[in-house]
């Protein structure tokens, strides 16, 4: 319990420019409240998200990763998110197979008008991660004294 108490997860959400990013924008315009621990990274299409991004995010300190794009059929580039769907169905299974908790990776379709869905998804993922606690898997080790400002990621 003590591990997760007061813990605020770091989440990175890769959001497609045409749907989810607009949805997140709309959520902001409508002054919807959602957890501030999500960092939105705008990508041209969810199909642009390389599985490598997910691994590097975990390595660099994220507790959870989201990939969000247009609903199938709505891709700005016609077919990008169909490739996303296949890719991350496999990636999700590979992550679990390598010992990552399924709660740490989420893919979702969120359109430009679904501001509430964006808010709810982020809240749900955030809550789930809060229960899971900090991610330690795939994390690069920090060198001693790194927090004291002497430098030191990743040794």
């Amino acid at each position, binding site marked *: 319990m003590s591990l997760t108490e007061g813990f605020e997860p770091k989440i990175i959400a890769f959001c497609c420019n045409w749907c989810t990013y607009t949805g997140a924008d709309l959520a902001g315009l409508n002054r919807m409240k959602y957890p501030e621990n999500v960092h939105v990274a705008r990508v041209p299409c969810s199909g642009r998200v390389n599985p490598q991004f997910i691994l590097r995010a975990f390595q660099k300190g994220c507790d959870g990763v989201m990939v969000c794009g247009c609903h199938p059929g709505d891709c700005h580039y016609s077919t990008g998110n169909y490739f996303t769907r296949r890719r991350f169905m496999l990636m999700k299974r590979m992550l679990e197979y390598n010992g990552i908790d399924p709660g740490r990776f989420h893919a979702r379709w969120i359109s430009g008008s679904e501001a509430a869905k964006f808010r709810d998804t982020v809240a749900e993922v955030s809550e789930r991660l809060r229960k899971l606690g900090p991610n330690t898997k795939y994390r690069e080790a*920090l060198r001693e004294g790194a927090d004291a400002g*002497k*430098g030191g990621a990743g040794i």
Partner: protein
Amino acid sequence: MELKKDRLLEALALLREGSDVALPLPADDGGEPAFRLWDGVQEPFLGSNTSLPPKELLFPRSEGMYGYNLKTGELSDILPEARTAVFGIRPCDVKSIENLDHAFLEKGYVDSYYRARRDGLTTIALGCSEAARTCFCDSMGVAPGDAPGADLMMNDLGDAYSVKANTEKGEAVAKLWEGLLSKGGAKAPAAPACGFSVKADDSLPDRLTARFDDPMWDSLSKACIGCGCCSFICPTCYCFDIGRENRGACGTAFRCWDSCMFSDYSRMAGGHNPRPSKKERLRNRYLHKLAYFSQRYGATLCVGCGRCIDKCPANLDITRVMDMMEGVDANG
């Protein structure tokens, strides 16, 4: 002096009181044997040499060099503090450490990280009583039964090891072991003959470099798949890369093993690569081992341990180039 074999672990335990002790140990799950830090209990793996060389003790796969803060510009170097005694190191690998010393400590610049680890290292060598079929150390100027460069030399006498100190560090170990050692007059049996031999005389470096443009490099390199296996399991390959990892305002510069067989090793920022294909890269590696290093430091960088011959995925064999120089081809 002699150390009875049944007192070996006791002797190692004594060493472990004052420093880390590294031994050839099998991997927990039956993987490749390597020099690993001893937990005080495990039996050393002494049947044959390790698949991985001991160079990691002096030149780790990755090591931090200095930390920095991007906001304040503050720098702090990370010099290692290591005191390690390594037991069971073979004469070829002792020779490889002498070569690393040349590279890291000579020609005007002393590598501080290597220096720190080297000063803290005591080498306790074990002469070979059996040769693997890939061994060719005696062709490369190494005596399989004797390592004059080791701090302490031990040889298998059957039920005991002979113990001979070569240096002050070695004498300190012998003194530490005083209570365990007994007088013994047994002579170590003659060292075994190597698995095979090649001709690598003093003229080899110049003869090889004279054939820099020879078509033999095409035929030697065709089967190479361009991986870095040979470099990483070689006891003397010491090339490294320097990189950085940042998180927030903090970062660390590190160095890690690199291989001249990789395409980005010598590629410049504009894209030009002086060694663009595996032919040039393999030639550079072989010549570095057998010619360039001798021309620069007066010592051959290949010690004949045979690891690369054993492990190459394409079954390439560095000694083929020496055979080709003699007009023979061992490959049929």
